[in-house]
């Protein structure tokens, strides 16, 4: 294996943008996703990632393009609606939580697909994008000139979403920590656990929208959960976990590019499979560490 093998994927000028976009998306999803995992709400993330579809379609119909904040607003709304209906069915209807989740997210997803098909002429959204992601195409989409560079708008979109996620996790760190660790005490110390939860879900919906174009709806669940799950195996401190998520996301993006180029397969899937590989490495490290620690 000569050096070319390792440099080849980078020869195409768009490669750098691809990796940057993928890294932004992974970071944007991984950070709020960490709190979903810590709160044992990974499946809410699954539900939201499916239920943003109708919101995206409606947002697109209003805004006319994929780069508009209307998409995020629409997605946040349908994501919020999903969680509200699940809660309603569970609290008032006596439906078991897992069944309620299943009923609602499939209904939302179906509405989204039907809307997409009904308004196919007006909505420039490839239905395949939902399952496959669309990064290779989107990267060649609209471009914006910044200085002497021509930057694809999707890079800016995912970049701002990543910034949003970083800001959210940084500025609300202590709220998120206390409401995730012990909601009862959080209530007593006026940390507004209910509102914090709603915010977390809203941000999740927003980052899933940006992931939508990168890896598609279904695989965005992996971006939410995989980084935190991997890092939980090797670290026992929350700040380290969050930094680890950023590293995991970046490495997944780079590895994804390599995988997609070498094996000629879908970029979104490659990113996730790299992430899974990193998870596996963390698992080995975890196994190694518990054989050393004596129970205390």
């Amino acid at each position, binding site marked *: 294996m000569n050096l070319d093998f390792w440099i080849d994927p980078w020869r195409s000028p768009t490669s750098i943008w691809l990796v940057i976009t993928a890294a932004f998306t992974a970071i944007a999803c991984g950070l709020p996703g960490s709190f979903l*995992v810590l709160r*044992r709400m990974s499946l809410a993330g699954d539900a939201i990632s499916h239920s943003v579809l109708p919101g995206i379609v409606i947002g697109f119909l209003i805004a006319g393009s994929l780069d508009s904040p209307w998409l995020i607003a629409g997605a946040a709304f349908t994501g919020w609606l999903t969680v509200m209906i699940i809660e309603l069915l569970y609290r008032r209807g006596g439906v078991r939580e897992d069944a309620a989740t299943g*009923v609602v997210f*499939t209904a939302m997803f179906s509405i989204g697909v039907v809307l997409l098909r009904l308004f196919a002429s007006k909505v420039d959204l490839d239905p395949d994008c939902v399952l496959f992601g669309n990064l290779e195409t989107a990267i060649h989409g609209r471009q914006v000139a910044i200085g002497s560079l021509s930057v694809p708008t999707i890079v800016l979109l995912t970049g701002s979403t990543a910034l949003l996620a970083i800001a959210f996790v940084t500025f609300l760190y202590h709220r998120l920590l206390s409401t995730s660790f012990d909601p009862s005490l959080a209530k007593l110390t006026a940390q507004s656990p209910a509102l914090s939860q709603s915010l977390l879900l809203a941000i999740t919906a927003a980052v899933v929208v940006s992931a939508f174009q990168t890896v598609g709806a279904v695989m965005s669940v992996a971006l939410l*959960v995989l980084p935190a799950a991997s890092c939980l195996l090797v670290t026992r401190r929350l700040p380290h976990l969050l930094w680890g998520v950023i590293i995991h996301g970046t490495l997944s993006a780079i590895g994804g590019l390599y995988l997609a180029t070498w*094996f000629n397969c879908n970029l979104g899937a*490659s990113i996730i499979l790299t992430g899974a590989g990193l998870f596996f490495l963390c698992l080995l490290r975890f*196994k190694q560490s518990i054989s050393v620690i004596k129970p205390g």
Partner: protein
Amino acid sequence: MTALHSALLAALLLGIVSGLLGSFVVVRRMALTGDMLSHAVLPGVVAGLAWNTTRNPLLVLICAVLAGVVGSVTMNGLLRHTRLKPDAVLALVLSVFFALGIAMISRVQPAGVQAFLYGQVAAIDQRDLLLLLAVTAITVTVVPLAFRSLSLVSFDASFARLLGFPVRFFDIAFFLLLTVVIVIAMQAVGVVLVTAMLVTPAAAARFCTHSLAKTTAISCAIGAVGGIAGVWISASRDSLPTGPLMALSTTLLFAAAALLGPRRGWLPTLLRRRSESHRIAGEDILKTLWLREEAPGLIQPLIFKEGLLKKLAAAGLVHRTATTVDLTPTGRDRAAMLVRSHRLWERYLTEYAAYKTDHVHDDAERAEHWIDEARMALLATKLGNPALDPHGRSIPSIDKEVNT
């Protein structure tokens, strides 16, 4: 058989079989495990499709089931050997296996994969239909036969084990059957919406009935009707995809059950509550009239609601003139029972529940409406048929008639 007929037949069979298994999936809280399986089988489906240029449904099924097994084993392994929580492990296995499937699809591009991803009932051909028929036949035979055992194992596995049931065998058999049904359902509604066919009909049925047997039957019906409706609508409007329409029809039936289901539907519950509060208000009127007879002058005359008075009069419990309301003998007996309940309950609270005498009245005001004849007899026996309540008032006995 036209394409539409075979699609309708497929929807019918699928509705039945997923309804049958679905009620157990819901009861065993495996709704999201089913979701995990439907995503985890994708690599197997792709492998099976890519094997040959001509599609072999049985081969695809076998490869898919194998993939499902690997997914399940991975999940259990991660649960057992790491500190990761079940929800995270489920989401992880679901999405990573799915990604593997997508990667394989983008590389190999096997024919017929569209049908599995998005569902294409129209693409279900003779061999698929035969397979579906076989699976439905097996399920429809086995599940009712093993119903009682399956129920026991689902509700209380440890107890079943104690009784000597092969719980492990049931779990594995159920899992395999479920995976097979999931793979078949995928071809109709697509990978994401399999959960809709499995979970939604059964969840709807839970609004309608307590019994698991009736739940299973109703969920088969809802699954079949929803599926057929979806196929029908999608056939008449060419632009609409079948899978989502089947899911949405089923969800509409769910919504109907949630609103109207006799057991827990919103409307029946509301009506039940309303009729209970009317009953209680009516009983309170009877009681007030009785207490006025017991100690005239002690209780100020109250204004009673016209509608309630009419009902009580119609039931022969009160006698009305233009200016007065009085108890009829039947009404008096009924009121006496109420007061008896109230005062017995006060005794019970003070003697058995260590309540203070001045704290029992409010509780008894509520409890008196929920003590039926059987419970009242129990109370009386337990207390030794007392004559007085904690405040010294006499407790009416059942046979006594108050002389006005």
